């Protein structure tokens, strides 16, 4: 009897251990992935940020890299540009995407073709799309400015004028609106028709229907578009860099280096500064500081997204 009594807790403990191991085994792919692709790189980034690191030699420098951030004019130019893009490009993309989706949701005939036409630019690889766009709007190589000039509208030299470079990039982003448009279109088509019918019976006009029915129903998707848009824009790199290279005209020869952000730093975004410091000047330690700043800001917006999702979930 005593043997049986003592065996009970032992068996229970063993079962608990087995259960824990089983849970761990099921979780292990995620744990391995998380450790290898997130935890370790993040820890390494924090670690290297306290060193001068050229990929081969580590020299401890304390807070030097962090202090340099405050007096690095290029980083601050990049921060200002990136914030401009977040403040202007993201809302415009959401608004334009919503307007387009609203339009497409109302079209009865030919809607599928129009959807495809508006979605297509998003499928073009970013480098090719940017090269084509810059060529087309460059007054020297493309027809757009010439066509407008014939009707008396003088468009700016988009990617060669520091004042118009970021608006030019915004236009490029609006051209590739397909991603935002398609999710907002899906959200709009998901709004129950009965709500509109009831509102119409109550005498609500189109604006009131949009304000009181459409917006509240699709607001989680709008929120998603806005926050993912912010995160994407914080990482805005390819289009800005390609536009600068193409509009500059100099061949991107192997072995030559040009300053990022042409013209006059107007297209310099934060990830470009990070790339330039890490892979062109080999200041990997300082690049880690920049990466951490980007991580903290992106994390902040991700947390907002998660909180909002939880809030919507609670409402349900």
């Amino acid at each position, binding site marked *: 009897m005593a043997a049986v009594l003592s065996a009970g807790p032992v068996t229970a403990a063993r079962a608990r*251990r*087995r259960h824990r*191991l089983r849970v761990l085994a099921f979780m292990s792919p995620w744990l391995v992935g998380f450790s290898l692709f997130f935890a370790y790189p993040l820890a390494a980034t924090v670690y290297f940020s306290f060193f*001068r690191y*050229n*990929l*081969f*030699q580590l*020299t401890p420098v304390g807070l*030097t*890299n962090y202090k*340099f951030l405050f*007096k690095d*004019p290029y980083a601050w130019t990049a921060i200002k540009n990136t914030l401009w893009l977040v403040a202007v490009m993201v809302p415009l993309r959401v608004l334009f995407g919503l307007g387009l989706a609203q339009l497409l949701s109302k079209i009865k005939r030919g809607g599928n073709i129009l959807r495809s036409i508006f979605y297509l630019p998003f499928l073009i690889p970013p480098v090719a799309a940017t090269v084509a766009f810059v060529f087309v709007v*460059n*007054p*020297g*190589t493309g027809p757009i400015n010439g066509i407008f000039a014939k009707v008396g509208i003088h468009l700016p*030299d988009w990617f*060669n004028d*520091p004042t118009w470079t970021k608006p030019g990039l915004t236009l490029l982003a609006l051209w590739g609106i397909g991603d935002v448009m398609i999710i907002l279109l899906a959200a709009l088509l998901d709004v129950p028709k009965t709500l509109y019918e009831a509102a119409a019976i109550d005498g609500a006009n189109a604006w009131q229907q949009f304000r009181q029915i459409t917006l509240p129903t699709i607001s989680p998707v709008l929120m998603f578009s806005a926050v993912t848009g912010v995160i994407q824009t914080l990482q805005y790199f390819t289009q800005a860099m390609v536009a600068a290279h193409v*509009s*500059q*005209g*100099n*061949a991107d*020869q*192997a*072995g030559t*280096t*040009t*300053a990022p952000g*042409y*013209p*006059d*730093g107007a297209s310099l975004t934060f990830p470009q500064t990070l790339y330039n410091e890490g*892979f*062109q*000047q*080999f*200041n990997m330690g*300082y690049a880690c500081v920049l990466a951490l700043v980007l991580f903290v800001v992106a994390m902040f917006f991700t947390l907002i997204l998660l909180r909002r999702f939880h809030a919507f979930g609670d409402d349900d």
Partner: protein
Amino acid sequence: MFPRHRRLVTALIVTLTATACTAGSGGSATESGPKAEAPQTIEVWHGWSAPHEVQAFDDAVAGFRKLHPNITVKLVKGQDDTKILNAIRSGNPPDVVSSFSTNNVGQFCSSGALQDLTPFLKKDKVDTSVFPQTVQTYTQYKGVRCTLPLLADDYALYTNKALMKGSQPPKTISELTTLAKKLTVRNPDGSIKVAGFLPSVTYYEHVGEHVAPSFGVNWLNGQGRANFATDPGFTKYLQWQKSLIDWYGYDNIKKFVHSMGQEFEASNPFEKGKVAMAIDGEWRVKFLQEEAPTVQYDTTPVPVNDDRQNAYGGGFVTGTIIGIPRGAKHPQASWEFVKYLTTNTDALVTFANGLGNVPSTIPALSSPKLTLPPQFRTFLDVFKNPNSTTIPSTVNGGDFVVKFDAFVQDQWEPGKVPNLQQGLQSLDDKVNSALKLAGG
């Protein structure tokens, strides 16, 4: 069950630890690895990718294959510095690497990414005086010679004979200025139809590093710090450049430059007869041969400032470099390959003929096997001229030149610098703080 789990976990830990410890390890020594006479395969990474370039490299290597039948050479095309550095850091680098970025020699040598070749050179008693002094400068950093030159590029003045209307190519900056104004043809609205000479750094190869040497500039001072505010050559260069830009009108230059398209296209304005005089690399000779065979042109050294006429004949020189990575598995065979390719006249001439580049040793310059057009002669002369210059290596990849060109393009040319001295001082500060950050 549990002991089995424990064994599995232990095995995993041991494997991971072993992997972590061995990653990135490697050694370097002239005597390490298999002897050069042993049968082996070496992997050579290079940046050329166009079919005719790849073929030219293969042809240049043919002699080595014949000379060292025991060494199989595997050529890998289209590699850049990022891939090279990643491979070295991973501990599994190729045996030989070639890079177009002389700007990165400081990083390669100071970090030990590429092996110091001095012991190899001493062991085989290679006479480095076969390389012009300028080339010797850009292939080392602070006495560590971790690369050797593999062909070179230099710059000269191209003049379109038809547009020159009988004028002789200029030798001084004042002659260049006079001719630039004389040969320029404007449209009725004042915009440029044909440019005599475009002084802007936004015109293809007219960047600071190719034009400022005509004013005898020293990019860095004795302490390896930026010299822009201190060296009067920069002020002279910038003031001349701005005065000519103002003569054209900044907006006119901008309009002209932005209508040109890309540098390496058949629409190049020199090839199209829209620019009378242009500074360009030796490769343009081959481009003209293929894209604009009817254009009659001359090449002469880049004009020098009037107070430096004794320096006429030199120019800016740079080129491709080749070295042996840290951790290369076959350093002795790799050295044989590097030595052959950088010092063997036939190999260099074959390669130069194929690419239209300048062979990088003095003996190769006078080889009768060089089959390049007569205009190419200027580039061979500039290459060996003692007045030719290059830019010094730094630990942060030529950042000082990049910042200088950006300053000229974005601030100086549009007239945003009210006080040049202060502007250059501010540029010095930016360059120096970046150098300090990188440990330079």
